[in-house]
Protein backbone atom coordinates (compact mmCIF):
# COMPACT_ATOMS: atom_id res chain seq x y z
CA UNK A 1 0.00 0.00 0.00
CA UNK A 2 1.31 3.46 -0.84
CA UNK A 3 0.11 6.95 -1.73
CA UNK A 4 -0.42 7.06 -5.49
CA UNK A 5 -1.81 10.59 -5.99
CA UNK A 6 -2.99 13.57 -3.96
CA UNK A 7 -5.46 16.13 -5.31
CA UNK A 8 -5.71 19.55 -3.61
CA UNK A 9 -8.65 21.87 -4.26
CA UNK A 10 -8.50 25.32 -2.60
CA UNK A 11 -6.39 23.90 0.24
CA UNK A 12 -3.95 26.44 1.77
CA UNK A 13 -1.70 27.75 -0.98
CA UNK A 14 -3.21 25.43 -3.62
CA UNK A 15 -5.54 27.99 -5.16
CA UNK A 16 -6.53 25.87 -8.13
CA UNK A 17 -7.05 22.14 -8.53
CA UNK A 18 -3.59 20.56 -8.30
CA UNK A 19 -2.86 16.82 -8.67
CA UNK A 20 0.51 15.50 -7.51
CA UNK A 21 1.64 12.00 -8.55
CA UNK A 22 3.46 9.86 -5.98
CA UNK A 23 5.43 6.63 -6.32
CA UNK A 24 6.79 3.72 -4.30
CA UNK A 25 10.31 3.97 -2.93
CA UNK A 26 12.10 7.21 -2.05
CA UNK A 27 10.53 10.41 -3.39
CA UNK A 28 12.04 13.80 -2.52
CA UNK A 29 10.16 17.12 -2.63
CA UNK A 30 12.10 20.34 -3.08
CA UNK A 31 11.50 23.98 -3.91
CA UNK A 32 12.04 27.54 -2.65
CA UNK A 33 11.04 28.75 0.80
CA UNK A 34 7.33 29.47 1.04
CA UNK A 35 6.48 27.57 -2.14
CA UNK A 36 4.06 25.14 -0.48
CA UNK A 37 6.06 22.00 0.40
CA UNK A 38 4.91 21.74 4.01
CA UNK A 39 1.36 22.48 2.89
CA UNK A 40 1.46 19.13 1.07
CA UNK A 41 2.08 17.38 4.40
CA UNK A 42 -0.63 19.47 6.05
CA UNK A 43 -2.91 18.15 3.30
CA UNK A 44 -2.05 14.54 4.14
CA UNK A 45 -2.68 15.11 7.87
CA UNK A 46 -5.94 16.92 7.07
CA UNK A 47 -7.31 14.28 4.69
CA UNK A 48 -6.48 11.36 6.98
CA UNK A 49 -7.56 13.10 10.19
CA UNK A 50 -4.11 12.55 11.72
CA UNK A 51 -4.00 15.82 13.67
CA UNK A 52 -5.87 18.78 15.05
CA UNK A 53 -5.66 22.18 13.37
CA UNK A 54 -2.85 23.26 15.72
CA UNK A 55 -0.19 21.45 13.73
CA UNK A 56 -1.35 22.80 10.39
CA UNK A 57 -0.40 26.36 11.39
CA UNK A 58 -4.03 27.38 11.32
CA UNK A 59 -5.99 28.93 14.16
CA UNK A 60 -9.22 27.47 12.89
CA UNK A 61 -9.99 24.92 10.20
CA UNK A 62 -11.33 27.57 7.83
CA UNK A 63 -7.83 29.11 7.70
CA UNK A 64 -7.05 26.06 5.56
CA UNK A 65 -9.23 27.36 2.73
CA UNK A 66 -7.26 29.20 0.03
CA UNK A 67 -7.22 32.94 0.59
CA UNK A 68 -5.13 35.30 -1.50
CA UNK A 69 -6.94 38.47 -0.35
CA UNK A 70 -7.49 39.39 -3.98
CA UNK A 71 -10.40 37.34 -5.17
CA UNK A 72 -13.43 36.08 -3.23
CA UNK A 73 -12.45 33.24 -0.93
CA UNK A 74 -13.79 29.88 -2.11
CA UNK A 75 -16.46 28.25 0.06
CA UNK A 76 -14.73 24.93 0.46
CA UNK A 77 -11.37 23.16 0.44
CA UNK A 78 -10.84 19.48 -0.32
CA UNK A 79 -7.93 17.05 -0.29
CA UNK A 80 -8.25 13.58 -1.86
CA UNK A 81 -5.65 10.85 -1.44
CA UNK A 82 -5.61 7.88 -3.81
CA UNK A 83 -3.91 4.80 -2.33
CA UNK A 84 -2.49 1.90 -4.35
CA UNK A 85 -3.62 -1.21 -2.49
CA UNK A 86 -2.54 -4.00 -4.83
CA UNK A 87 -0.72 -5.65 -1.89
CA UNK A 88 -4.06 -5.60 0.03
CA UNK A 89 -2.35 -4.17 3.09
CA UNK A 90 -5.49 -2.22 3.82
CA UNK A 91 -8.61 -4.32 4.41
CA UNK A 92 -10.20 -3.17 1.14
CA UNK A 93 -10.98 -5.51 -1.76
CA UNK A 94 -9.63 -3.29 -4.52
CA UNK A 95 -6.36 -2.29 -6.17
CA UNK A 96 -7.06 1.37 -5.35
CA UNK A 97 -9.15 3.39 -2.95
CA UNK A 98 -9.66 7.05 -2.11
CA UNK A 99 -9.89 8.87 1.19
CA UNK A 100 -11.04 12.46 0.94
CA UNK A 101 -11.94 15.32 3.27
CA UNK A 102 -13.81 18.49 2.54
CA UNK A 103 -14.43 21.53 4.71
CA UNK A 104 -17.14 23.96 3.75
CA UNK A 105 -17.55 27.44 5.17
CA UNK A 106 -21.07 28.54 6.05
CA UNK A 107 -22.44 31.71 7.60
CA UNK A 108 -22.56 30.13 11.00
CA UNK A 109 -19.30 28.17 10.90
CA UNK A 110 -18.13 25.23 8.85
CA UNK A 111 -18.83 21.58 8.01
CA UNK A 112 -16.16 18.91 7.74
CA UNK A 113 -16.86 15.70 5.82
CA UNK A 114 -14.77 12.57 5.31
CA UNK A 115 -15.31 10.36 2.25
CA UNK A 116 -14.20 6.80 1.40
CA UNK A 117 -14.46 6.20 -2.37
CA UNK A 118 -16.95 9.02 -2.58
CA UNK A 119 -19.20 7.80 0.28
CA UNK A 120 -19.46 9.90 3.45
CA UNK A 121 -17.86 8.17 6.46
CA UNK A 122 -16.86 9.20 9.99
CA UNK A 123 -13.39 10.04 11.30
CA UNK A 124 -13.50 6.90 13.42
CA UNK A 125 -14.10 4.73 10.34
CA UNK A 126 -11.14 6.38 8.61
CA UNK A 127 -8.93 5.77 11.66
CA UNK A 128 -10.07 2.14 11.88
CA UNK A 129 -9.23 1.47 8.25
CA UNK A 130 -5.82 3.19 8.49
CA UNK A 131 -5.04 1.55 11.84
CA UNK A 132 -5.40 -1.90 10.26
CA UNK A 133 -2.95 -0.80 7.58
CA UNK A 134 -0.38 0.36 10.14
CA UNK A 135 -1.08 4.12 10.15
CA UNK A 136 -1.76 5.21 13.75
CA UNK A 137 -3.56 8.46 14.57
CA UNK A 138 -0.53 9.77 16.45
CA UNK A 139 1.23 9.39 13.12
CA UNK A 140 4.81 8.47 14.14
CA UNK A 141 5.33 8.00 10.44
CA UNK A 142 4.93 11.76 9.82
CA UNK A 143 7.63 14.14 11.08
CA UNK A 144 6.64 17.82 10.77
CA UNK A 145 9.10 20.58 9.98
CA UNK A 146 11.27 21.46 12.96
CA UNK A 147 10.08 18.50 15.07
CA UNK A 148 12.99 16.12 14.46
CA UNK A 149 15.27 17.45 17.19
CA UNK A 150 12.34 17.74 19.59
CA UNK A 151 10.77 14.29 19.15
CA UNK A 152 12.99 12.43 21.54
CA UNK A 153 14.36 15.32 23.58
CA UNK A 154 11.01 16.92 24.51
CA UNK A 155 9.11 13.73 25.36
CA UNK A 156 8.95 12.45 28.93
CA UNK A 157 10.20 8.91 29.62
CA UNK A 158 6.61 7.78 30.12
CA UNK A 159 5.53 9.21 26.77
CA UNK A 160 8.41 7.35 25.11
CA UNK A 161 7.44 4.09 26.74
CA UNK A 162 3.83 4.61 25.64
CA UNK A 163 4.97 4.55 22.00
CA UNK A 164 6.04 0.94 22.51
CA UNK A 165 2.74 0.18 24.30
CA UNK A 166 0.79 1.23 21.23
CA UNK A 167 2.95 -0.76 18.86
CA UNK A 168 2.88 -3.90 20.98
Amino acid sequence: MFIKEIEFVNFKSFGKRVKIPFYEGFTAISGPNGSGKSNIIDGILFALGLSGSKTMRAEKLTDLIFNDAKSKQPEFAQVTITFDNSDRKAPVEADEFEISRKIKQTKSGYYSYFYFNGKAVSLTEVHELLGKAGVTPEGYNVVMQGDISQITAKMSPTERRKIIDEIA
Partner: protein
Amino acid sequence: KRDTFMEAYNGINENFTQVFFELADGHGELILENPNDPFAGGMTLHAQPKGKNILRLEAMSGGEKSLTALAFIIAIQGYRPAPFYVFDEVDQNLDGWNVERVAERVEKSAKVAQFIVISLRKPMLEQSDRIIGVTQLEGNTSITGVKSP
Protein backbone atom coordinates in the same frame (compact mmCIF):
# COMPACT_ATOMS: atom_id res chain seq x y z
CA LYS B 1 0.20 -7.81 28.12
CA ARG B 2 3.70 -7.64 29.61
CA ASP B 3 4.90 -10.31 27.20
CA THR B 4 3.68 -8.53 24.08
CA PHE B 5 5.21 -5.32 25.40
CA MET B 6 8.59 -6.97 26.05
CA GLU B 7 8.56 -8.57 22.62
CA ALA B 8 8.02 -5.19 20.95
CA TYR B 9 10.55 -3.49 23.22
CA ASN B 10 13.26 -6.10 22.54
CA GLY B 11 12.66 -5.99 18.81
CA ILE B 12 12.75 -2.20 18.60
CA ASN B 13 15.75 -1.98 20.96
CA GLU B 14 17.73 -4.39 18.76
CA ASN B 15 16.86 -2.32 15.69
CA PHE B 16 17.74 0.93 17.48
CA THR B 17 21.22 -0.38 18.34
CA GLN B 18 21.71 -1.49 14.75
CA VAL B 19 20.47 1.74 13.10
CA PHE B 20 22.25 4.06 15.53
CA PHE B 21 25.48 2.22 14.73
CA GLU B 22 24.85 2.68 10.99
CA LEU B 23 24.00 6.39 11.33
CA ALA B 24 26.44 7.57 14.02
CA ASP B 25 29.05 4.81 14.40
CA GLY B 26 28.06 4.70 18.02
CA HIS B 27 26.23 2.60 20.55
CA GLY B 28 22.53 3.22 21.15
CA GLU B 29 20.14 1.57 23.58
CA LEU B 30 16.57 1.94 24.84
CA ILE B 31 16.60 1.72 28.62
CA LEU B 32 13.50 0.85 30.67
CA GLU B 33 13.29 2.64 34.00
CA ASN B 34 11.61 -0.40 35.56
CA PRO B 35 12.41 -3.56 33.54
CA ASN B 36 10.48 -5.83 35.94
CA ASP B 37 7.30 -3.84 35.59
CA PRO B 38 7.68 -1.72 32.46
CA PHE B 39 4.29 -0.03 32.84
CA ALA B 40 5.38 1.41 36.20
CA GLY B 41 8.17 3.47 34.63
CA GLY B 42 9.20 5.19 31.48
CA MET B 43 11.88 4.61 28.86
CA THR B 44 14.96 6.67 28.01
CA LEU B 45 17.18 6.65 24.94
CA HIS B 46 20.89 6.25 25.53
CA ALA B 47 23.15 7.22 22.70
CA GLN B 48 26.92 7.14 22.67
CA PRO B 49 28.44 8.63 19.51
CA LYS B 50 31.84 7.16 18.65
CA GLY B 51 34.49 8.07 21.19
CA LYS B 52 32.19 9.84 23.63
CA ASN B 53 30.58 8.85 26.88
CA ILE B 54 26.87 8.14 27.10
CA LEU B 55 24.90 11.31 26.53
CA ARG B 56 21.80 12.57 28.27
CA LEU B 57 19.39 13.49 25.49
CA GLU B 58 19.25 17.12 26.69
CA ALA B 59 23.04 17.56 26.53
CA MET B 60 23.31 16.43 22.93
CA SER B 61 23.98 18.77 20.05
CA GLY B 62 21.25 19.57 17.50
CA GLY B 63 22.67 17.11 14.99
CA GLU B 64 23.11 14.34 17.56
CA LYS B 65 19.48 14.74 18.69
CA SER B 66 18.24 14.51 15.10
CA LEU B 67 20.27 11.36 14.42
CA THR B 68 19.00 9.73 17.62
CA ALA B 69 15.39 10.57 16.79
CA LEU B 70 15.74 9.26 13.23
CA ALA B 71 17.34 6.05 14.49
CA PHE B 72 14.37 5.59 16.83
CA ILE B 73 11.78 6.16 14.07
CA ILE B 74 13.57 3.82 11.66
CA ALA B 75 13.94 1.23 14.45
CA ILE B 76 10.16 1.28 14.98
CA GLN B 77 9.66 0.99 11.21
CA GLY B 78 11.78 -2.15 11.18
CA TYR B 79 9.56 -3.81 13.79
CA ARG B 80 6.13 -2.57 12.68
CA PRO B 81 6.32 -0.88 9.27
CA ALA B 82 3.71 1.71 8.26
CA PRO B 83 2.88 1.82 4.54
CA PHE B 84 4.28 5.33 4.12
CA TYR B 85 6.62 7.81 5.90
CA VAL B 86 6.64 11.58 5.45
CA PHE B 87 9.68 13.58 6.64
CA ASP B 88 9.74 17.41 6.51
CA GLU B 89 13.33 18.72 6.49
CA VAL B 90 14.57 16.20 9.06
CA ASP B 91 18.12 16.91 7.82
CA GLN B 92 18.19 20.61 8.69
CA ASN B 93 20.55 20.15 11.69
CA LEU B 94 22.86 17.65 10.01
CA ASP B 95 26.31 18.26 8.55
CA GLY B 96 26.92 17.15 4.95
CA TRP B 97 28.38 13.78 5.96
CA ASN B 98 25.42 12.89 8.19
CA VAL B 99 22.90 14.00 5.54
CA GLU B 100 24.47 11.45 3.22
CA ARG B 101 24.32 8.69 5.82
CA VAL B 102 20.69 9.38 6.64
CA ALA B 103 19.84 9.50 2.91
CA GLU B 104 21.45 6.09 2.37
CA ARG B 105 19.53 4.68 5.32
CA VAL B 106 16.24 6.09 3.98
CA GLU B 107 16.98 4.59 0.57
CA LYS B 108 17.41 1.21 2.29
CA SER B 109 14.14 1.56 4.24
CA ALA B 110 12.35 2.71 1.08
CA LYS B 111 12.61 -0.78 -0.30
CA VAL B 112 9.86 -1.91 2.11
CA ALA B 113 7.84 1.28 2.61
CA GLN B 114 7.11 4.51 0.75
CA PHE B 115 9.24 7.49 1.88
CA ILE B 116 8.27 11.07 0.99
CA VAL B 117 11.05 13.41 2.11
CA ILE B 118 10.99 17.23 1.88
CA SER B 119 14.56 18.52 1.78
CA LEU B 120 16.68 21.50 0.78
CA ARG B 121 20.00 19.58 1.05
CA LYS B 122 21.76 18.24 -2.03
CA PRO B 123 23.03 14.92 -0.63
CA MET B 124 19.43 13.99 0.29
CA LEU B 125 17.97 14.97 -3.09
CA GLU B 126 20.74 13.14 -4.96
CA GLN B 127 20.04 9.87 -3.14
CA SER B 128 16.31 9.87 -3.89
CA ASP B 129 14.66 7.87 -6.70
CA ARG B 130 12.95 11.06 -8.01
CA ILE B 131 12.42 14.71 -7.07
CA ILE B 132 9.05 16.50 -7.22
CA GLY B 133 9.66 20.20 -7.79
CA VAL B 134 7.31 22.71 -6.10
CA THR B 135 6.98 26.42 -6.86
CA GLN B 136 4.57 29.27 -6.25
CA LEU B 137 3.42 32.16 -8.38
CA GLU B 138 1.26 34.99 -6.99
CA GLY B 139 0.68 32.85 -3.88
CA ASN B 140 -0.48 29.79 -5.86
CA THR B 141 1.44 26.54 -5.41
CA SER B 142 2.02 24.33 -8.43
CA ILE B 143 4.27 21.44 -9.39
CA THR B 144 7.18 22.15 -11.74
CA GLY B 145 7.63 18.50 -12.64
CA VAL B 146 9.10 15.20 -11.55
CA LYS B 147 12.73 14.57 -12.39
CA SER B 148 15.45 12.06 -11.64
CA PRO B 149 18.24 13.39 -9.42
